[in-house]
């Protein structure tokens, strides 16, 4: 290759790169832009990349149906690289520079907290698809994942009523979601008459890989003659070595079941699940749910991603619901203007994948069924219990004294995310 050729090919390459970045601005007015704010590199890429793909699929499908308001949708993908401050920068870039109509994104609670001020300041819309700790309701954010009462509390009820559990290990990764969830669960368990010495709380660092001592402790704690269960808010990567250690030390689900809130089909994909059969997870969706809507969704996903072995999971369903809600709210309002959409989206009800309808409530949380599933040998979950109806997401927990009197209602005239019913004023504070 001569020097000249090399130069031209480099120029062509950079032109192609520039084009791929410029696609957003080139078509300008005839499309509606949708921002996707998920980490594609760094530690959280493991979970968030799938959500980016799911969003691209939903947008492609919507365009096949003719787009929204007669315009095609256009995805603007940015990579905040699992770096929390970068989330805020990228969110600003999406709203200010790319002028997106709505943003679908974030996974960890820290990333959500870091973008909140940006969305508030620039009046953007964020759809947040992951189960979280609650204690928050913001005008510009729609929480399509589960609040603690849509996941943690029903799971504990199931263990108490069906498995007869009397002793509890609350094990979590050391950050805001597990800490707040465990605070709520501890208060809830004590309100149900569980003695403090029957609750063991344990925190581990992110990516903890040596679980020998903790699993041995759980084993000891569980052999005190009372039925014991582990409630796990262990995050992402640390789960694989945790479950491997459980299996190796011979803790079977029949003896000490583990119910997890962060382990879904995607996390199990990296594991030999044969020794884990019977351990539980609580979600609002499982890939194994047998409905026509779900079968259609899975087929579309496999066709889009081109790989039959890829699984679907709960946050994907949350994006499916959130995206359809946004589409319907925009159609209803006749515009993508954030204020109009915020007004029109409350009360919007769209089909979910588990055979019912989910509705957006005035507190910007949605209604969902709660499912408890047991891990099967093929890495899927089998539903062993579900709520009879839909559960409304409760942003301010009823089990924490500080947040009990608070409610959120974003409809006029209240339009407040933390209204204190005791003082009659907007601006209460729950648990940080």
């Amino acid at each position: 290759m001569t020097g000249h050729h090399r130069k031209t090919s480099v120029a062509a390459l950079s032109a192609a790169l520039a084009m791929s970045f410029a696609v957003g601005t080139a078509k300008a007015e005839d499309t509606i832009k949708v921002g996707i704010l998920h980490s594609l590199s760094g530690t959280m890429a493991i979970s968030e990349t799938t959500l980016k793909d799911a969003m691209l699929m939903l947008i492609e499908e919507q365009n096949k149906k003719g787009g929204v308001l007669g315009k095609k949708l256009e995805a603007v993908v940015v990579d905040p690289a699992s770096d929390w401050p970068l989330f805020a920068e990228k969110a600003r870039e999406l709203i200010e520079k790319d002028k997106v109509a709505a943003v679908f994104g974030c996974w960890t609670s820290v990333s959500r907290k870091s973008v909140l001020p940006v969305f508030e300041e620039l009046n953007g819309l964020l759809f947040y698809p992951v189960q979280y700790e609650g204690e928050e309701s913001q005008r510009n954010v729609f929480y399509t994942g589960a609040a603690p009462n849509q996941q943690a509390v029903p799971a504990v009820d199931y263990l108490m009523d069906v498995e007869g559990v009397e002793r509890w290990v609350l094990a979590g990764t050391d950050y805001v979601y597990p800490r707040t969830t465990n605070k709520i669960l501890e208060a809830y368990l004590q309100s149900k008459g569980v003695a403090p010495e029957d609750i063991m709380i344990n925190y581990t660092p992110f990516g903890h890989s040596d679980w020998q001592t903790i699993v041995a402790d759980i084993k000891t704690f569980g052999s005190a003659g009372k039925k014991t269960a582990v409630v796990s808010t262990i995050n992402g990567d640390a789960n694989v070595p945790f479950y491997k250690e459980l299996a190796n030390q011979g803790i079977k689900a029949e003896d000490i079941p583990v119910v997890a809130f962060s382990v879904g089909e995607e996390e199990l994909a990296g594991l030999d699940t044969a020794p884990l059969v019977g351990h539980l997870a609580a979600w609002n969706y499982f890939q194994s749910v047998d409905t026509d809507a779900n079968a259609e969704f899975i087929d579309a996903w496999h066709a889009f991603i081109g790989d039959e072995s890829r699984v679907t999971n709960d946050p994907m369903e949350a994006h499916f619901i959130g995206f359809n809600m946004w589409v319907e709210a925009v159609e209803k309002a006749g515009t993508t203007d954030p204020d109009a959409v915020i007004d029109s989206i409350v009360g919007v009800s769209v089909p979910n994948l588990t055979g019912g309808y989910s509705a957006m409530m005035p507190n910007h949380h949605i209604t969902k069924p709660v499912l408890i599933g047991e891990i099967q040998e093929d890495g899927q979950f089998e539903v062993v219990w579900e709520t009879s109806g839909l559960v409304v997401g409760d942003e301010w927990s009823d089990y924490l004294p500080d947040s009990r009197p608070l409610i959120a209602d974003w409809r006029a005239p209240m339009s407040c995310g933390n209204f204190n019913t005791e003082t009659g004023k907007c601006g209460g504070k729950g648990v940080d």
Partner: protein
Amino acid sequence: MRLAGPLTFAVAIILSLAGVAHSQEKPLREIVNSFAEARNFNQTEEIVAELGATGDPAVVPVLRALSEGDLHVRKSDNQVFIVSGRGKTLTIIDPLTGEMVGEEGKRALSKIRVNNGLRRLIRDTIGGLALGSPDPAARLRAARTLISNPDASSLPAIEAALEKETDPEVAAGMMRARAAAILVSERPDAEKSEAITAVAAISTQDALSLLLGFRGQATGELREQVDRAIARVERVQSYWAMAQNVWYGLSLGSVLLLAAIGLAITFGVMGVINMAHGEMVMIGAYVTFVVQEIIRTSAPWLFDWSLAIALPLAFLTAGAIGYALERGIIRFLYGRPLETLLATWGVSLILQQAVRTIFGPTNREVGSPSWMSGAFEIGQLTITWNRLYIVLFALAVFAVLLFVLNRTSFGLQMRAVTQNRRMAAAMGIRTPRVDAMTFALGSGVAGLAGVALSQIDNVSPNLGQGYIIDSFMVVVFGGVGNLWGTFVGALTLGIANKFLEPYAGAVLGKILVLVFIILFIQKRPRGLFALKGRAVEA
């Protein structure tokens, strides 16, 4: 419903001991086929109880299949079969005779659902049937289950089985099961007193919880006796807890040693701050994944050998990448530690993202060969096979490296170059080549570590990040430039960490270890085993 468990258990034991079989009014097949009508877990539970009550050993495979999720109903005629195989068509097997019946599409069958409660019931039922089993090992297992879940109603059955027992080991197990059951029964105090002594002799956590439970209802002399027994068991338990901590520490230390030993060469011996060291470990783990994938698709019988095959390949792959890294980047940066640090950190990001692009961002499944799964017990110490093999592997790698460094001509050249580069060059040693080979060796060893770590950690692009800080910590603590320092440093940190963890928790424990190292380095900047002499000054 909750009572069904222990009751069926007792009935099953009695029936199985009496040798009752096929005498029930309802034929077995009819009961088995009634699974098709069960609408919920409670109804399935009733049928399991009914099967257990027949006392017929023929139901054991049916129950086992049900527990494992292999019992299916054929939708067309509501017949129940055991299925095997994966995929769209399954082989169906007659549940009672065990004969192959034919094949059936997956959609034509529906699985009989089980939950934890059912699995527990099935385990107890099978356990009850096994107390009369001809296999002594099965009888012993049944007796052990009875110690963990003592039940007064099974006492007559245990005593009947004990009379017939000929194997002394099984008889001892049954004696203990009997003692455990007596403690929860209404037997007279004299028998209970004997039982306390027998249970205290078991000295396990199960025994302790049994005694603690009994303490509440004991009075007078019995209370004193049980208090003494509890104190004794607790003392025994504390010794075992100590031994367990030492073992966990050794095992964590060996993981640290494996992760750090490659760095002990590239950083310790060559002085290159290699931030991409963790990624070499990750590459080793991905080589294991690729080897297993190929074996799974083309030669499944080789699976137990997959790690042995992956070891040389991981060494060569990571070594080759290390060689390229040294030739392509690092050799231009010798003597400029800051630039080396930044460049290798950039390389680590590139390698991570490359792996993410090729293999996807999600975890990859690396299976354990059968000989590495499970655990065994020494006294009350549970030792998992994978940890034991990793400890042995770490020691072997260390020994081989020590040999290479001290007893081979390559090792001699390597030491010569690091101690006095110009003199070595004057003696005719090709120093650039030695540099490249040394770096490749360090990287290759990191690849070996990756194969071992794939057994206990996530195989994801982030695998290496978790080990890089720990590795530097070990090398700096142990003393730069000394393999023995790395060895002692890794094991010390592992054991210290495991002794701190129960008191301080995992998060604080790690912080305390870090603080300790910082203070230690203040006192001894060259680490545990400091190199002395002119080499240090160079």
